[in-house]
């Protein structure tokens, strides 16, 4: 690896800027705020770039972006909008079993039928942040479970249960939209 920080920045950080911005937008829900967060995260990344020895630059950068975004959110007292009840991982997943056949939906078909991908985007952005970040990291950024656990600092089991519950919430809401 090139010892020159600028060159390392170009290899390690620059290729992942688009992902970093997209992730920050999902967390902050605002384009300008996302740019501020990513800029601040890049300053931190640049400062510690010599210490990066791992192999997964994208996960490393997303971790810094995530931590920066959470600091930023709590500075703005926006984290208080998150209901703690929503984050209880003790809650059991409930799977509806009645009327299974009648109410069977394919979310994708429904989204297409509604002609409204914007709906899905809205539903994702309204998920509580603890669910949203896990869902976005998996289903939009394509990270593996253990990478998500690394980025968020959550135990693997919590990652799995939040991901399942986030998806369940979306499916339930899409079903409601349709009926």
């Amino acid at each position: 690896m090139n010892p020159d920080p600028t060159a390392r920045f170009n290899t390690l950080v620059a290729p992942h800027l688009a992902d970093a911005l997209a992730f920050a937008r999902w967390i902050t829900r605002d384009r300008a705020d996302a740019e501020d967060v990513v800029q601040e995260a890049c300053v931190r990344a640049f400062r510690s770039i010599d210490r990066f020895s791992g192999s997964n630059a994208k996960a490393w950068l997303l971790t810094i972006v995530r931590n920066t975004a959470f600091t930023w959110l709590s500075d703005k007292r926006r984290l208080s909008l998150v209901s703690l009840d929503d984050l209880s991982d003790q809650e059991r997943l409930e799977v509806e079993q009645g009327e299974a056949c009648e109410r069977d939906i394919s979310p994708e078909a429904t989204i297409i039928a509604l002609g409204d991908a914007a709906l899905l985007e809205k539903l994702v952005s309204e998920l509580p942040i603890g669910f949203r970040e896990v869902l976005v990291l998996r289903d939009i950024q394509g990270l593996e479970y253990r990478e998500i656990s690394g980025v968020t600092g959550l135990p693997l089991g919590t990652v799995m249960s939040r991901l399942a519950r986030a998806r369940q919430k979306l499916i339930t809401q899409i079903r409601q939209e349709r009926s």
Partner: protein
Amino acid sequence: MPLTHDDVLLLHAYLDGELDLATSLNMERRIREDPVLQRVAREVKGLKLALSRMHTDREVADAFLSRLERKLGIGRRWSPPQWMLLAASLMIVAGISGSLTSIAVLQREPLSSSTQLLDGHLRSLMSSHQTDVSSSDRHTVKPWFNGRITQAPRVVDLTDQGFELLGARIDVIAGTPVPTLVYRRRQHVISLSEMLLDNATEKGEIQQRNEHGYNIVTWTEGQRSFVAISDLNSTELVSFAQSFRDSS
């Protein structure tokens, strides 16, 4: 039988390709037999597909980049120097006229070229266009290589498997032009290069490794060696390689 909390978690993990083979096969069997699991699996699969197709803005605004570079005190962001572009186009000519030495070098060590392919992949990510020809139609992409390179690379439509064809470009490895197809999964770009080998081989196993945070999978097939590079997670990149390999 009602689903337990663990059943649901396992189902999601199964659909995410996160289970080991034995657990995965077991889950597959249970889904076949249990109508409730079947329905939930269909819903979750549909949702995952809808999410992966959701348009996500991939643009890094120039104004933002300039601001960032000023803030960090680094120079202009890296772009391929003009000589490199020129060299690439000259090499294409050299390739057609038959640059035997470089082809021989390439053929002996098909895997060592992955560093150069990785460079090509990174370069394409950082420039505004990732392809020299942009089309999702393999009947447009395949003829585009005519007259640019001597080999006729295989171009496969993998839309149904969730990999969208974006187009193609030519990378230059060890002085030899190499056809590279560009696919996309969600917003992850996959560069797939095809190189010719000296000797015909059997359909080889798919091998994977990681370099600088990028996943690289390789396999050989007859006289061709394939290298796919992406920041996509390794499970999905291997499934991409399998879909491509099995399409013939």
